[in-house]
């Protein structure tokens, strides 16, 4: 896994250096595209916060809440996993105002992407919680822990380690889905690229650079999650040894 990622990173860096040295035109587009990249990163970070929050709320509600709330969280998960992210984005952007709720495009983007990824994340969180060995629950009951204590001290710390790799994949999905916000006129990396393509007609240069910038953002997320995974893994082995 490490080797594959390093190979991809190396190839991307080499390609970028090659492009920049062979063709001066690439430098022209870089500042404008990086401006768009800032908005892309902002939306990614904020939507990630919404997604992680929604995922935990929905997963815990689906597992432990009373029935009506359980149904509600199931409905949220199925609806946001079952419809397309772009449809959700358009629905919040065009339809919500008709019900009297007018949100700014940036807020819509963060909400729609956060809710979408959060629905997938809820299943990740739920899966990680129920995959914690049954004996751990039983031992906590034997120790006379309350349900809150059990979750907080015993179950969730172990579930965290199991859910980091799938969260890594979901966050990459999130990075990629931020490109959709260009379709509700937010000047992110994708929209900047389209505008530059239309004004300069340097199609090859613009879109190659954009792909490389997205690749850089995705790889950063992958590496960050890999570091987190190793930290969590270390904690687990220490716990087992002790």
């Amino acid at each position, binding site marked *: 896994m490490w080797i594959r990622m390093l190979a991809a990173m190396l190839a991307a860096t080499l390609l970028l250096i090659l492009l920049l040295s062979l063709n001066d035109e690439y430098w022209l587009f870089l500042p404008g595209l990086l401006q768009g990249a800032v908005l892309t990163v902002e939306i990614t970070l904020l939507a990630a916060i919404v997604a992680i929050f929604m995922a935990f709320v929905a997963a815990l509600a689906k597992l432990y809440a009373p029935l009506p709330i359980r149904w509600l969280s199931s409905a949220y998960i199925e609806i946001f996993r079952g419809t397309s992210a*772009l449809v959700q984005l358009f629905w919040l952007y065009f339809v919500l105002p008709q019900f009297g709720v007018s949100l700014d495009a940036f807020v819509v983007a963060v909400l729609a992407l956060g809710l979408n990824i959060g629905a997938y994340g809820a299943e990740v969180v739920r899966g990680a919680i129920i995959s914690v060995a049954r004996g751990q629950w039983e031992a906590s009951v034997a120790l006379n822990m309350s349900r809150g204590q059990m979750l907080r001290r015993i179950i969730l710390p172990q579930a965290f380690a199991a859910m980091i790799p799938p969260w890594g994949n979901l966050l990459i999905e999130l990075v990629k889905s931020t*490109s959709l916000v260009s379709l509700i006129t937010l000047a992110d990396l994708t929209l900047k690229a389209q505008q530059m393509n239309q004004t300069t007609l340097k199609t090859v240069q613009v879109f190659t650079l954009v792909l490389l910038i997205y690749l850089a953002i995705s790889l950063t997320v992958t590496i960050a999650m890999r570091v987190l995974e190793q930290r969590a893994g270390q904690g687990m082995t220490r716990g087992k040894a002790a």
Partner: protein
Amino acid sequence: MWDWAFTFEILPVLGRAAIVTVEATVLGFVIAATLGLLLASIRLAFPLAGVAVTVLVELIRSTPLLIQIFFLFFVLPKAGIVLDAFTAGVLAIGIHYAAYCSEVYRAGFENVPRGQWEASIALNLSSWRTFRDIILPQALPPVVPALGNYLIALFKETPLLSAIAVLELMQTAKIIGSETFRYTEPVTLVGVFFLGMSLISASMVRLLESWLKWRY
């Protein structure tokens, strides 16, 4: 707020657009499933070319599909290859999901015990026959459910084709919206269509999964 007369008026138009969406899904998945198998096979057969395939797969998987659609639609004409929007879009979706499918196939190949290869060598089978008659029949059935999940994922990404003005569901809904200033019904109907199709396909994948488990 919700106008039923308007809903029934736009239903036939959206129905026709839904056919385009389904066509794009089927064609895209055919490309994804075959190209994915090809990529995974190349990786299995030629380790050196395999590195190139690995890098390509990682590149495709970590960049947005929307950009890849734009790339095919705008960059290929510069190289003299002019594709219409539908072809370019379906090709982009197919190539994007081929990268995901190739990982699924790879896992399938890795699940076949090494002894099967060794036994085939002992039986003096050629490596092509070993691959076709021994390895593939064992590698494919377990990966079918995973491929099914990618079919659903692919289906849900087809609205991206609206970005290059393919007249699928989302684009049609947008056009109706901009003409009538009513987005509530068309966009909601598109959502309902996707939800319905996704739920049906998901339960079919689950059914297939249990059938395969029972059979193998």
